């Protein structure tokens, strides 16, 4: 029973990280109908920025904030330089460009920082919390992880619902042509979408790296889980992305905990879940378009 509680809680924590990655994918997908395979690479790169800043200043929070800012800048630059020129070409071109972005960033990280595994500091203690002597399997830092993603997600949700910039973004995602006719500068809105996605990705990188270590490919599996979470949620639903992330996090945590030699099978379990979801509901569990089509 204690084990079950521990697996569930740590599943929730990792699920929040997957949710952050999933949300970043959803933000870009809603605006441009493009899945950004470079997201994990971007997150990995900004986390290296954080580690450099922390190393030089000794302050975790300076590194944290600068990495988030770097995520925003990197997202905007990528959209402006390499994504925008593909927008009027067939979708496959843009997909290949984002794959190119991923491998370019991984190669650059390898050149600049080497391939070795680097440990990443945490802001809070990683000692396991207990309630009345029962170990919960999560630490203070894990609580911070969940809270950070939750706060960011809520802030984005509020911004999308109650600010005029958010309204513009929703309009551009809903129908680019009509939005343009109403005087919204859709191209700029898309850049902002990429910048926000960069921010969420950077956050995910900062939060997950203490447990995965940091190396050029360190975000590959996290990206894959984030993608799975986003697909479970339907790719265009921010709420679905969060629920998808949590479901996947918990499921993978059980798989890793209960299955024999489970840790090695976790990626395959994720693949199984993805295929299952897509077979049952090809548009994900929370997709709005599914409802509209029926």
């Amino acid at each position, binding site marked *: 029973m204690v084990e079950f509680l521990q697996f569930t809680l740590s599943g929730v924590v990792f699920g929040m990280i997957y949710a952050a990655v999933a949300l970043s994918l959803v933000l870009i*997908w809603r605006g441009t*109908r*493009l*899945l950004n*395979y470079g997201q994990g690479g971007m997150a990995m790169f900004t986390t290296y920025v954080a580690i450099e800043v922390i190393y030089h200043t000794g302050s975790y929070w300076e590194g944290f904030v600068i990495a988030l800012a770097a995520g925003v800048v990197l997202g905007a630059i990528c959209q402006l330089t*390499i994504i925008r*020129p*593909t*927008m*009027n*070409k*067939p*979708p*496959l*071109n*843009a*997909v*290949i*460009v984002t*794959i*190119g*972005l*991923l*491998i*370019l*960033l*991984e*190669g*650059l990280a*390898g*050149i600049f920082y*080497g*391939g070795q595994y680097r440990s990443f500091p945490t802001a809070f203690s990683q000692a396991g919390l207990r309630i009345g002597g029962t170990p919960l399997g999560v630490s203070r830092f894990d609580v911070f992880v969940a809270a950070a993603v939750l706060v960011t997600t809520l802030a984005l949700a509020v911004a999308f619902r109650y600010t005029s910039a958010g309204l513009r973004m929703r309009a551009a995602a809903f129908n*680019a*042509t009509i939005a343009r006719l109403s005087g919204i500068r859709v191209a700029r809105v898309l850049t902002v979408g990429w910048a926000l996605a960069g921010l969420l990705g950077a956050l995910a990188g900062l939060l997950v790296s203490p447990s995965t270590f940091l190396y*050029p*490919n360190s975000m*590959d*599996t996290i990206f*894959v889980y984030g*993608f*799975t979470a986003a*697909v479970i949620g339907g*790719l265009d639903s921010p709420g679905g992305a969060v629920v998808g992330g949590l479901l996947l996090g918990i499921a993978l945590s059980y798989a890793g905990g209960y299955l024999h*030699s489970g840790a*090695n*099978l*976790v*990626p*395959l379990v*994720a*693949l199984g879940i*993805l*295929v299952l979801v*897509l*077979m049952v509901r*090809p548009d994900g569990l929370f997709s709005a*378009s599914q409802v509209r089509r029926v």
Partner: protein
Amino acid sequence: MSMQTLPRRLGVAVLTAAIVWFLSVKLDTFRDYQIAEVAVEVTAVAGLTVLTGLSGQISLGNGAFMAVGAYTTALLQLHLNWPFVAALVAAAAVTAVAGAIVGVAAARLRGPYLAGATLILGVALPSLAFAYQGIFGADQGLNVVFTAPGFLGATFPLTRWQAWVSTVVALVTLVLLANLCYSRIGRNWRAVRDDEVAAALNGVNVAVTRILAFVVSAVCAGLAGSLLAIVTSLVAPGAFTITLSIALLTAAVIGGLGSLPGALWGSLLIVLVPTYATDLATSHGLSSTVGSNIPIAAYGAVLIFVMLVFPQGIQGGLHRLLTLFTGPDPNARAPRDAPAPHVTPPADEVPASHHEKEGTS
């Protein structure tokens, strides 16, 4: 442009075989090894370029299919002592089944879902080697014994024999693929790629067509994996990372998606360039980590550059150069050699609604 009939294709294959034979005899063992590497690469890339360029499906998991082929070969040889040819055929059969399973799932998935699902396959499959260490030998992998046949003499270099065997398999694969591409099946692939609804209305079974493309591409990857096993004498998970799948995609894109000659140009580049980059880096006093990462960064830069600047790749460029000198070939049937219209049309040819149609479907 020149590969339109079976005799011509066979002619080109025999000519290539002769060139490879000449090179392998004249060059040293390291070059022989590189020839074998190119042959392995081109076998896998040809399958991928057909899948992506002709049937319009993208796969980031063909490295995983290579792993399936390689491990099948190694296990059959290790436990049942199968000769290589039998193991090669078995590897093709096993990857065909694996490809069909993935293809069934893939047939229901559109672009982004498909690429993502195959990406997970590429990431997840190598972890099996660690989950079942007793069978697959974890990090250490499995050793493969491969020797040159006795009649060639005791002094015959093994690398030359490896180069010959891989080249023969690669050429046979290419000729078969070329036949397939210009057959009814190839036409169906292009029809499904360009307009699913129109293809279905013309009696093409869209799902079966897509699955078949996946099976063909998986079999090519499986053959390549089987060859890789005998060329490197080792099958270990480290060889089948996601970087391998992306390298295959890079080769297909550089060469020109959908073009079999392009697969050869792309494979030559991604086998030869990393070697030179590493040499160059070490000769300039850079560490080997830098040297080994330069090609990876270069793959990325090239993928972006090619897609933005000349999406037809090398073969498209060659084709354009050729028509520049000779004028348009009156016998050329445009759709055949125009590399992958789905990937390549200039911006102004794409109807404005294209994106929204793709996106909301």
